[in-house]
């Protein structure tokens, strides 16, 4: 191709691209990998929202929740993201501190087991952390009982994984100043600590441990997707720590109205009914048709534990030190 023909082609392509862009606005949503994978909620959510918005919804997967926030911090105010979806309450204090987020402005009737009043971050789903083991095997009834037993568990590292951090907060919320005793008691139960959820769950399924730190909803996956009822979540007397997954709107978004529209859409039935069997979590606002069959078999903890975003941020470093000291003996 000569230069003379090449340049007009490039200009033409650029014009087409610009034209297409002008017609359909693009909404960029940064999220974690498993949300946007083909088994996650991403594809269905994209189709459902694009039916109503006359826009192009683009998910950008960025590792897990923590990596997602780090990505945003790397990009800073010039980020292309309009929405960040997939942070949890252990991360929202740090996310807020970036000053990049704007109030969500949505008034929704949420079905969380706790009251929600964060003006910046809006929940899209939630779940209880729980140890998941095999049906018919010994199941301790509390963290204390687990610590006293010789049951073998695998957990995630709170320094590299959000469930790992969740367990740290769970022990802290349940035991406060005595958290280090629990960790000292758990030390001989812990087969190993993995960098992330996938490795831990993989080790559990390979039979390396009697149980793994996951969610009360994990057995629902095996039951509904694999028709395998052999996995159970252990109910603990101390209560179960909550993971509330939230989305927030970037203050610097160039699609502010569209971002608002997405956040409002996020708590409608069209979005929420996708969540249970794709993200394997509870929807933040239970849809009119209720939860899918199989969810009624799941453990309902007697008590929900959750540290506020500020408390979680405040106790984190000390709790990490306790954890490391107790498990390094």
């Amino acid at each position, binding site marked *: 191709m000569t230069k003379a023909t090449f340049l007009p082609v490039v200009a033409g392509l650029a014009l087409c691209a610009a034209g297409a862009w002008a017609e359909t606005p693009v909404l960029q949503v940064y999220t974690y*990998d*498993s949300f*946007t*994978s*083909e*088994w*996650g909620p991403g594809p269905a959510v994209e189709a459902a929202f694009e039916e109503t918005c006359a826009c192009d919804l*683009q*998910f*950008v*997967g*960025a*590792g897990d929740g*923590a*990596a997602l*926030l*780090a*990505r945003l*911090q*790397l*990009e800073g105010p*010039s980020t*292309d993201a309009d929405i960040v979806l997939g942070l949890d309450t252990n991360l929202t204090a*740090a996310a807020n501190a970036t000053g990049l987020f704007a109030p969500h402005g949505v008034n929704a009737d949420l079905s969380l087991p706790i009251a929600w009043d964060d003006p910046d971050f809006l929940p899209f789903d939630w779940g209880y952390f729980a140890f998941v083991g095999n049906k018919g095997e010994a199941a301790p009834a509390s963290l204390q009982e687990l610590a006293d037993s010789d049951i*073998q568990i695998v957990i995630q*590292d709170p*320094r*590299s994984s959000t469930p790992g*951090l969740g367990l740290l907060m769970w022990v802290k919320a349940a035991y406060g100043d005595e958290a280090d005793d629990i960790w000292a008691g758990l*030390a001989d139960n*812990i*087969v*190993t*600590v*993995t*960098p992330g*959820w*996938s*490795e831990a*769950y*993989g*080790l559990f*399924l*390979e*039979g*390396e*441990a009697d149980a793994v730190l996951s969610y009360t909803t*994990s057995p629902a*996956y*095996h039951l509904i*997707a694999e028709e395998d009822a052999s996995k159970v979540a252990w109910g603990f007397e101390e209560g179960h720590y909550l993971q509330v997954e939230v989305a927030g709107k970037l203050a610097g978004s160039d699609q502010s109205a569209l971002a608002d529209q997405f956040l409002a859409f996020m708590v409608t039935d069209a979005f929420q009914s996708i969540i249970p069997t794709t993200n*394997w979590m509870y929807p933040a606002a239970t849809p009119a048709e209720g939860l899918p069959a199989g969810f009624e078999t799941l453990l309902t903890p007697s008590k929900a534990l959750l540290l506020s975003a500020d408390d979680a941020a405040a106790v984190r470093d000390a709790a990490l*030190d306790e*954890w*490391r000291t107790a*498990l*390094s003996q």
Partner: protein
Amino acid sequence: MAHSPFTIKLRWPGALAGALVLLLTLGTLGAVAWQAEWVGGLSPADYAAIRFTVLQALASAAISTMLAIPVARALARRQFRGRSILITLLGAPFLLPVIVAVLGLLMIFGRSGLLNGGLAWLGLPGFSIYGFHGVVMAHVFFNLPLATRLILQGWLAIPAERFRLTASLNASVWQLLERPMLRAVAPGAFLVIFLICLTSFAVALTLGGGPRATTVELAIYQALRFDFDLGRAALLAGIQFLLCACAALVVWRLSTADMLSGGMDRRVQRWDSGAAWLDMLVISAAAIFLSLPLAMIVFRGLPGLVDLPVSVWWAAARSISVALVSALLCSGMAVALALWGGRFVAVVGVLPLAASGLVIGTGAFLLIYPVMNPAKAALVVTALVNATLALPFALRALEPGIDTAKRDFDRLAASLGFGPWRFARMIILPRVRRPLGFGAGLAAALSMGDLGVIALFAGDAQETLPLAMYRLMGAYQMQSAAGAGLLLLGLSLSLFWIFDKGGRAHAQM
């Protein structure tokens, strides 16, 4: 190099390659440090992590290298059916994504693995892999093949004439040839493995059994992902480079150059036989240790391979193209650098090993983000970074051959009026086909299995096979993930085998 003893010189391609390596290692570190807000230094936990990191790396490197010597020696002096397939297969652990290899190991040595099954059947107490010994064992599993290959190259580089000479003198091959060769080659192999283990993260944590097994790389991960403390990440990455520098200095002091004259590239004949049964025992032991976990990966992956989602095949195609580009780049850079030679190249040749993959990724992101959308550059950057990360291995494999060829033919070629390009094409390249094929194969295979950079950069339709595998695991799709792991193993090995075979096609003159 100011005082090159050689007449024929070609500097700028080497300088270009060297500059790229510096940019991707120290440059990315600089980019991270530049963005950092510096608060406080290292915590006691960081010092504990440094201590653990160095200790496990020393143990892993020492054991891998010591075990590799008898294996390489046995392979060097025995010819048997399947030898070349065995050598290729033995390279597999090194090329695997960590989690695949770890799961393979656990199916043998884990709590419900074959070993414990056997022990329980015999009524013996169980064996726990979790702990310091498990970390070292996994690192030996990963690196014994690499050490064996590096040392085997040394054996194969001994010219046939010297074996003939030694035999005619009725002298000891070990005294005269093998020990000096090992003194020249083994410290380098030790250094490479020490540095690989220095930046270990997931293996150490998963098999270490808890936070005792915290490595510097995990501390970097925490600093970058959870604390967003770029200063601490940069500081820790700097410490990794410092450790690397210390190790490299010690090793360079210890190793001696092999200064015998060159040969005529004849086929090696051996007159010293040694005990054949002992050699076969050594080879069998290594083959069993390395291949059992691989067999388990195949066994585990087969059911999932049948109905892999289409997206995984696309990811595989993407990975193959990245791997091919990376292999080409890596070989080109390695030849350019080896031709240039000298201390600078020696430094450039180990820097990528000491670099933290996370810091490279983050730094590259910071460098690219102001200019363009990182997702658009994802595959290019992945190929570049992987070529750089594989460079130390390719360079290490190439250098002895290129040095020898330069030493032996420089004056002759100069007197015939050869220019640098002609010298490289006609004299050097034919002589280093074998290590070049090995290096390119290694670069391709390493690039197939890499997860570091792409995880940060990849946009929607750019996931590579390892990333697709991790995403499958994250979505409870463990069976498909195992299938993808097997596909990855197969593709990595095939790429490696094709390049390696290509390099050996005309190796025997």
